């Protein structure tokens, strides 16, 4: 699974990082600027938790398997 953060939507609520620190990190300004990232299976649940907690709906999960 891939996480894709819409940087234009991110407002730096930090909830993604609070809920899933192993998946999401914020930059020095406090925004999520991570590039599209493949998530290992054991972190998928966390990644999902971070995404549903984002108040801006800025995180998209792409479930197609990586090739």
């Amino acid at each position: 699974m891939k996480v894709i953060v819409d940087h234009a939507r991110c407002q730096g609520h930090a909830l993604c990082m609070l809920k899933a620190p192993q998946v999401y990190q914020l930059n020095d300004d406090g925004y999520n600027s991570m590039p599209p990232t493949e998530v290992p299976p054991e972190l998928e649940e966390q990644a999902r938790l971070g995404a549903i907690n984002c108040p801006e709906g800025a995180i998209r999960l792409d479930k197609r398997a990586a090739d």
Partner: protein
Amino acid sequence: MSYQVHQAAQRLETIPPHVPADRVVELDYFSPPGVTEDPHLAWKRLHDGPDIVYTPYYGGHWIVTRADDMFAVMQDYETFSNWEFTVPKRGPGNPVLMPNQLDPPRHGPIRSVVLRPMSPKAVEPIEPVIRKIMADRIASIVPKGGCEFVSEFGGDIPPELFFEHARIPKDKLPEMKRFADAVARSDNEEDRRAARIGGANYMMAILDERRQVEELDDDVFSVIVRAEREGRITREESTSIALNVFFGGLETVSSALAFIVLFLARNPAHRRQLIEDGSLTQDATEEFLRRFGILNLARIATKPTTFKGLTIEQGEQVLLPLHLAGLDERKFPNPLEVDFHRKRAGHFNFGTGPHRCLGSNLARPEIRIFIEEWLRQIPDFSVDPDDKPVGASGVAMTMTRVPLVWPSR
């Protein structure tokens, strides 16, 4: 003193013709019926009616009650401006708060000045200081066997922590607190305006001191002065930003602490959960923020618009009771229940859109550390059976009185 006295005279005599009769409610948002017993439940009654209503108080304004609609309003800054972000309109003669009152595109560059010192990374290193201040203050009231939380504890902590965060000399604290108290608690608009102006002048003096410093640090006031030196902002903008970051974190945090301590006083089972599992406090903080939202913010329509089939005229204000978003059962099942194991937080207590609270990364650890330290030192406490908590509404939902008792040692 109370929050309840306002310019009720500003109630509109006649409802404007574009407002459908079935949307009109008689609601002075400073005193919804039942507010003294429980401010959140008093507001929650609005969810029994239409999603968007109109009240004739304060010159007449709309109230958006559901999470999805609030989200839409806060994201559409071109239609709904932040210039008048509280009801009633402040009008001219008040110091401007930046970035809060600005709209994009001016908003972003001003906000970016203070982003870094307000980020999670910048706040983390001062957590031990927050903990020490919190622990010492709690230790000082433990022997009393009880306290009136709001006057003896809650109100003093946030300004002290902010001064620590911004590295402002402590001798400036008492004077600044006096202005802050008057802004928050005076029941008279003239006094509030005077306190805002007094606070602004005092803030300018604090900034002037910082301007003398050659080697500036990375704290919030230093980055403001550095931006000024680099010509990115003017002196007036410096003051506006400093005022916003200072005043933004006072009543909001102290009100949150008051709601949380009251809930914990009444719910020993929840206390036990937190005491037995220390890893829960982070999720508990988020759940409390959802359940006990604070602000009643507003926007002002920049042009005539149609929203959900309603006509909103240019210059009309739309009130956003952000605390109701967290209590919206369309988003959160059993919203009144406090459940530390909820999967979804996603509340709007810190807003949404470009103005997302700049202080949220400071507010969260303040609240979390408060819960941890309070329960460590006062694990067993309750509401004083001979007294009564008192709630209030306004720009901030708050408790004006939370009498507590605990077994003295």
